[in-house]
């Protein structure tokens, strides 16, 4: 039983600011792992380190047995790690469908000439990509608007589209950065169900950054709490909820 994702003494500094400070933890296969902490605690930076978007200052990180510390983002994605972004980074002027199709890049092989000449390989790939994308869009209830520009979608729909796009990568590990931001409680409840459902259906391991405490508590198997880049607590929701350090840091008083 090896961990799906493990980070060891991970540190990242920006100038004088230590955004992530000597953080170590493991995410086990199949769990939903919550990452919480006040704004600016270093949660998103941690995601960026794990996905290779930000180089690590010191420490190491592994995906299963593969060390990913110095890998490029696209190499890490190829291992089966997908993510969404806190401030939604859809390909805004492309259609919803294109967004999802793009994310299947790693599962297709057609080169320039396949595409231009529309070889049988390209055609069959396109068919599969199209079908699978539509299936994913149906799951997030966006199939009817597949051809609309992504940026024209309401906030909540953009969040769901981003999740669909991440799923199109067919990842083993999915990192969700505040997927419920900007949603009302009803939407959040739906989102929780959706995440649970996705977790089951796609046999995923999920790491979730979320501010909304009830949502995190209800959804996660384990929770890590960051404050000022430091991991201050790690454990089950109820254990974390009662940790005085967490109450002090997260609830602000």
């Amino acid at each position, binding site marked *: 039983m090896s961990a799906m994702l493990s980070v060891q003494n991970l540190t990242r500094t*920006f100038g004088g600011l230590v955004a992530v400070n000597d953080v170590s933890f493991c995410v086990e296969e199949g769990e939903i792992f919550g990452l919480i902490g006040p704004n600016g605690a270093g949660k*998103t930076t941690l995601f960026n380190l794990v996905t290779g978007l930000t180089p690590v200052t010191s420490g190491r990180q592994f995906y299963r047995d593969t060390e990913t510390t110095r890998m490029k983002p696209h190499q890490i994605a190829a291992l089966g790690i997908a993510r969404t972004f806190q401030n939604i*980074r859809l390909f805004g002027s492309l259609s919803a469908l294109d967004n999802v199709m793009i994310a299947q890049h790693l599962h297709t092989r057609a080169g320039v000439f396949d595409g231009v000449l529309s070889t049988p390989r390209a055609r069959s790939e396109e068919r599969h990509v199209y079908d699978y994308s539509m299936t994913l869009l149906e799951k997030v209830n966006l199939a009817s608007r597949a051809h609309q520009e992504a940026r024209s979608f309401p906030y909540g729909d953009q969040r769901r589209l981003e999740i669909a796009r991440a799923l199109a990568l067919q990842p083993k590990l999915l990192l969700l950065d505040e997927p419920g931001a900007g949603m009302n409680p009803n939407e959040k409840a739906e989102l929780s169900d959706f995440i649970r459902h996705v977790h089951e259906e796609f046999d995923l391991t999920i790491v979730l950054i979320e501010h909304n405490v009830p949502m995190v508590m209800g959804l996660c198997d384990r929770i890590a709490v960051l404050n000022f880049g430091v991991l201050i607590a790690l454990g089950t929701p109820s254990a974390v909820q009662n940790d005085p350090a967490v109450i002090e840091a997260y609830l602000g008083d």
Partner: protein
Amino acid sequence: MNTTLFLQQLINGVSLGMVYAIFALGYTLVFSILGIINFSHSAVFTLGAYFTYAFMGLSWGFNGLLARQSLPLELPFVLAMLAGGVVAGLVAVVIERAAFKPLRQRGADPLLTLVSSLGIAVALVNLIQFLVGAEAYSYPSARVLGPLGLPPALNLSTPEAPLIIPTVRVVIIFASLIILALLVLLINATKVGKAMRAVAEDGTTASLLGINTDRIILFTFFLSGLIGGVAGTLVGLSVTITGPYLGISFGLKGLAVIVLGGLGNIPGAVLGGLVIGIAETFAPSSLKDAVAFVILFLILLARPQGLLGKAVVQKV
């Protein structure tokens, strides 16, 4: 290369670099505020030189719509240069209002503004030719350096091992330093200068502080045109107004200079000018331009944001 020749070339390089720098100052000023390459700066630079000529009361040649016309006033060179600069600044203001502002308000792609400014440059250059022809014009030296009784060149060393710098270049170096000093003073020590820096760094925040960003942008264009116009006159003084393409021939080098120094960075423009000026001077003459650009290429690979530019940290 012996020491004298080395020193001579160093002087040559610095003086060439200062010419590049004063061309680039107005260029980089607009970039710092708007993040846009303003190609029309080359044309405004050229216009400045022509305006000065006009304000000196000199008459145009035999070609063009204004053939043999002249203004009924005869300003001394320095006054004419300032007047020329002011008018060039006003032209820049008109350009901002007519071409830049409408695009800005529509949230247009900066590249579109670049192309628009290019169109203006083409129109202005051809307008100059239409009005006063393609011939060279010069400020009569008797009315420029003559009153001061200066020789055409200064020898900084002995007659046996001369270290020569033409007087005009000394004038340009000093004038550039004065312009630079005034600009630095303006930007760092005055209210409007601070407002310019605020708008350059963050236009939204600047407006939250009560700064009318629109007016600051307009002022920046005026300043850019003013400096450009004066620079055009100084270059015109040094090498004559060689025709409507005077400034255009500086356009590419000027761009290289500001990119090398770091876009929007005023000390960077000066440093970039000096680096390229000196590199060109020491390069074999047949490879001059290539050497300047190879250096630019290599420096960019090492410092993608230019020598003094600030690295942009992408927020994820």
